[in-house]
C-alpha cells in the first residue's frame, strides 16, 4: 500500500500554482504537506514530507524562492525515480548550510510543528489588518507598561512586556516581517535580563525602550498605508544596535535611576477580553434594537414594562459595543509629558480624571491629537521653570490635569495647567498687528473675546508665534480638530496662575432625554439638558426693543426666539397664551416660544437622510409612540439663524 506518489503529485500540483513571493500560498502548501505526511504509512515517505515541510519553512523565513523551486524540482524528480531516501539524505546534508542564517530557530530537526499550520488561508489582507490592529494595541500597552515600570518598579510589568513581545515575535515571524522579528527577539532577551535584575533601571534604558516602541509603531503606520506592498524586511538598524548595547550590559555611565521602590498595587490587568467585530454589524444591531424599541412604544399596556426594561438594557449594551474607556489615551499623554519634561527640564505632575468614561472608539482616537497639542503648549509655554515657580510662590513641580466629564449629550474635556497663564493684552495687540481686529475693537472687547482671538485664522500662522505669551503653536490644529468633531473650543486664563482649555464635543448618543413641544401642528424635540425652565407667557408681555422681541423675566431682559418664524411651517393668529422655554446657550439665556409643551420622554434619534442633511435648525428626527415623526431641534443653529436675521426683520 504505497499511497505517497499520489500525495507527491498533489503537492507538485499545488506547488506549481504557487506564485513567487506569495507567502500565504506557501503556508497553504505547508499545510498540505503536513496532511500528506500524517496520512502516509511508509517511514521513508514521512521523512520525505518532513523535509519538504522544512524547506518551505526555511523559505518562509528567508524568502529565497529560487532555492525552494530548485530543491522541490529535485525532490519531485527523485520521487519519480523512486529514490526518496537518496534525496532525503542529500538534503539533510545541505540543510545546515540552508539554515545558518536562522540560527535561533530550531529548524535543523526538520520536524513539523503541527501548531504552525493552524492558520486561515487566502485572506492575506485580512490577516495583515488583524496583525496591525493587534500589534497597535500591544504597543499601546507596551508604552503604558514601560511607564508604569519606570514609576513603580513593578516586576509584573516586565513579565507582561516579555509576553507581549513573545507574541509579537511569533506573529511577525509568521508574516515574514524580519526586522520586527529581530527587534522583538532582542526585546524579549532584554526583558528577561531586566527581570532577573541583571540590567538595572536607568533613564537611558526607559528612553531606549520607548524609542523602540516608537519605531515599531512607525513600521505599523507604514504597513497600514502600504498594505501588502510594504517592505516586509523593513528593519531598524539603530534600534537593533542600541538594544544590542543594552543587552551587552555596556551601559553609558549613569547612576542607576532612583528607584521609586513603591511596589504599588500592581497593574490592573484587564481581564475583559477584547474581540474584533465589524462595525457595520454593530450598527445593524443598533438599528434593529431601535425598531424593536419603537414597535414596543406602540403597545401601551401594563404588561409592556418588563419587556421595555429589557429592550433598554439591550440597547445600552449594543451602544457600548462601540465604546472604549477614555483611559486608553492616558499612556500616550503621559508619555508626551514625560518626554517634554525631560526635554525642558521642568518637573510636571500629570493627572487624568474621568478615564472610566466610555465613548466611541473613533472619538477617543480623534481627541488624542488635539490634547497632545494642548499639553505641548502647556509644558512649553505655560509651565514656568522650577526656580521661577518657586519665586512666584508655587510648587516647584508644575501641574497639568485633564478632566473629562459627560454632560448630557456632550463630552467636555478640560486641560488645565498652573503655569503663567496667557497675557491677554499681548494677544489683543498681536491681533491688531495681524489685522484681525482694529485698535478700537481692542479697547472695547471683553477679555474672554480677546483670548479667543488666538483661534482666529491668521493669528497663529504668522511667524514668531511663540512670542505671544507662548501660545499659538498647534492652536489652529486644535481648533480645526474640534470643528471637525462638531465641538466647541473654549479657553480661559488667570494670568500668573492658570490656563484652561475646554473642548466640548457632542457625543453620538442614540437615545435623547427630550422635551416634546408642539409648534403649529408639528412636533419637535428639545434636549432636556438645554432647558432651564418652562413658562406660561401672556403674549401681551412680549416687548419689542430695536425690532427684537424680548421678555422681562425676574428683572432680566431675555431675547425671544419665536419658533413659528424659525420653522416657517405655519402662520396662525396670536393666541391668548403661549408656552416659553428658557434655554441656556453659551452662558446666555433665551426664551423659545412654542405653541404647547407636550411631555418629557426618552426618544430614539435617527440621523436625517442625505436628502434633508442641509436642513438648518433640525439635527435629527425621531419616531414617537403612535408612529408620529418628530424633529429634533438644533438650538445652536436656531439661535445663530435668528441672530443673523435680526437686522432686517421688521416684524
Amino acid at each position, binding site marked *: 500500500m504505497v499511497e505517497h506518489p499520489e500525495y507527491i503529485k498533489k503537492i507538485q500540483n499545488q506547488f506549481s500554482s504557487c506564485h513567487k513571493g506569495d507567502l500565504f500560498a506557501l503556508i497553504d502548501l505547508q499545510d498540505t504537506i503536513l496532511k500528506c505526511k500524517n496520512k502516509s504509512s511508509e517511514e521513508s515517505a514521512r521523512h520525505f514530507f518532513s523535509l519538504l515541510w522544512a524547506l518551505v519553512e526555511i523559505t518562509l523565513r528567508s524568502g529565497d524562492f529560487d532555492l525552494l523551486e530548485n530543491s522541490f524540482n529535485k525532490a519531485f524528480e527523485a520521487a519519480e525515480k523512486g529514490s526518496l531516501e537518496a534525496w532525503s539524505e542529500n538534503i539533510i546534508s545541505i540543510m545546515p548550510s540552508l539554515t545558518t542564517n536562522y540560527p535561533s530557530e530550531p529548524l535543523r530537526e526538520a520536524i513539523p510543528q503541527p501548531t504552525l499550520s493552524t492558520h486561515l488561508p487566502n485572506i492575506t489582507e485580512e490577516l495583515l489588518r488583524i496583525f496591525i490592529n493587534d500589534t497597535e494595541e500591544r504597543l499601546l500597552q507596551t508604552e503604558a507598561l514601560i511607564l508604569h515600570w519606570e514609576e513603580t518598579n513593578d516586576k509584573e510589568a516586565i513579565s507582561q512586556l516579555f509576553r507581549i513581545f513573545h507574541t509579537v515575535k511569533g506573529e511577525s515571524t509568521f508574516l515574514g516581517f524580519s526586522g520586527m522579528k529581530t527587534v522583538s527577539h532582542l526585546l524579549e532577551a532584554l526583558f528577561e535580563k531586566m527581570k532577573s535584575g541583571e540590567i538595572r533601571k536607568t533613564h537611558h534604558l526607559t528612553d531606549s525602550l520607548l524609542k523602540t516602541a516608537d519605531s515599531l509603531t512607525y513600521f505599523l503606520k507604514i504597513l497600514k498605508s502600504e498594505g501588502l506592498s510594504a517592505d516586509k524586511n523593513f528593519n531598524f538598524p539603530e534600534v537593533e544596535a542600541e538594544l544590542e548595547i543594552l543587552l551587552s550590559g555596556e551601559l553609558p555611565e549613569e547612576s542607576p535611576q532612583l528607584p521609586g521602590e513603591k511596589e504599588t498595587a500592581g497593574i490592573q490587568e484587564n481581564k475583559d477580553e477584547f474581540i474584533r467585530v465589524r462595525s457595520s454589524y454593530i450598527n445593524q444591531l443598533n438599528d434593529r434594537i431601535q425598531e424593536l424599541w419603537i414597535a414596543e412604544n406602540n403597545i401601551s399596556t401594563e404588561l409592556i414594562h418588563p419587556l421595555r426594561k429589557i429592550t433598554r438594557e439591550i440597547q445600552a449594551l449594543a451602544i457600548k459595543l462601540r465604546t472604549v474607556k477614555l483611559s486608553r489615551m492616558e499612556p500616550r499623554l503621559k508619555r508626551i509629558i514625560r518626554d517634554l519634561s525631560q526635554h525642558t527640564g521642568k518637573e510636571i505632575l500629570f493627572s487624568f480624571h474621568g478615564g472610566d468614561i466610555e465613548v466611541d472608539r473613533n472619538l477617543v482616537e480623534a481627541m488624542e491629537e488635539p490634547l497632545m497639542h494642548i499639553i505641548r503648549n502647556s509644558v512649553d509655554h505655560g509651565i514656568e521653570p522650577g526656580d521661577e515657580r518657586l519665586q512666584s510662590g508655587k510648587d516647584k513641580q508644575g501641574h497639568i490635569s485633564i478632566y473629562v466629564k459627560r454632560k448630557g449629550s456632550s463630552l467636555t474635556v478640560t486641560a488645565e495647567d498652573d503655569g503663567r497663564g496667557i497675557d491677554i493684552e499681548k494677544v489683543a495687540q498681536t491681533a491688531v498687528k495681524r489685522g484681525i481686529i482694529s485698535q478700537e475693537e481692542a479697547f472695547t472687547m471683553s477679555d474672554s473675546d480677546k483670548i479667543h482671538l488666538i483661534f482666529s485664522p491668521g493669528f497663529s500662522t504668522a511667524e514668531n508665534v511663540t512670542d505671544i505669551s507662548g501660545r499659538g503653536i498647534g492652536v489652529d490644529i486644535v481648533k480645526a480638530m474640534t470643528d471637525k468633531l462638531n465641538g466647541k473650543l473654549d479657553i480661559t486664563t488667570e494670568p500668573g496662575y492658570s490656563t484652561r482649555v475646554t473642548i466640548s464635543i457632542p457625543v453620538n448618543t442614540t437615545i435623547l432625554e427630550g422635551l416634546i413641544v408642539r409648534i403649529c401642528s408639528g412636533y419637535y424635540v428639545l434636549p432636556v439638558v438645554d432647558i432651564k425652565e418652562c413658562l406660561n407667557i401672556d403674549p401681551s408681555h412680549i416687548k419689542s426693543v430695536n425690532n427684537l422681541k424680548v421678555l422681562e423675566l425676574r428683572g432680566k431682559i431675555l431675547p425671544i426666539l419665536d419658533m413659528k418664524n424659525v420653522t416657517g411651517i405655519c402662520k396662525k393668529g396670536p393666541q391668548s397664551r403661549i408656552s416659553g422655554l428658557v434655554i441656556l446657550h453659551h452662558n446666555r439665556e433665551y426664551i423659545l416660544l412654542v405653541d404647547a409643551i407636550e411631555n418629557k420622554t426618552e426618544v430614539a434619534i435617527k440621523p436625517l437622510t442625505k436628502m434633508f442633511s442641509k436642513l438648518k435648525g433640525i439635527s435629527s428626527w425621531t*419616531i414617537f409612540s403612535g408612529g408620529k415623526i418628530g424633529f429634533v431641534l438644533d438650538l445652536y443653529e436656531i439661535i445663530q439663524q435668528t441672530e443673523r436675521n435680526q437686522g432686517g426683520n421688521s416684524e
Partner: protein
Amino acid sequence: MNKVNKIMSKYLSFILGEEEYCVSIDFVKEIIVASRITKVPKMPNEVAGVLNLRGKIIPVINIKHKFGFDNKTPGSKSSIIIVELEYNSRPELFGIVVDYTKEVLHIPDEEMSSIPYINARINANYITGVADMNGRIIIGLDMNKVLNEEDLELLNTVSTSTGIFSQTPPAE
C-alpha cells in the same frame, strides 16, 4: 434607453390628474395610503414630507407638484408608491404621491420604447415611452430620472434658505 430585453414587462399604473402613468414594477416596493405624511419645515412643495414606514423615515415626493399639475395637497384617495432607487450609490426608499394607483399591467416593450410627440407638460427626459393600450394612453416614467440626484440635491439646498412654507400640514 431600450435596454429591456423581455417581450413584456410589468408596470404599475397610476393616475395623476386626468392622465395615466406607469413605472416599472422593479422599482416598486409597496403601496400605502397617504394619511401619515409629516411636513418637513422649510421644504419646497415638491417635498410632501416624510413618513414612517415601520420605523424607517422616508422622504415623500409630490410628483404632481414637480410636474406642475396643481398645488393641491394629497387627498383622501391618494396613495403613496414606495420606490427603491440608487441615490448616492446606496439603495434609498422614496415615497411618490399619486392620485390613486390603478393596476399592474403587462406592456410589450416595443410599445414602451416609442415616444410619440405629446404635448408633454413634463420633462421629456422623465419618459421612457408612451403605450397605447387599445386607446388607453399610458405614459411610462423613468424613476431614476424623475428623482435624479441633482434635483434632490437642489431641493436640499433650497431648504437652507429662509422659510417658504405657508401651508398647514394635511394630516392631523
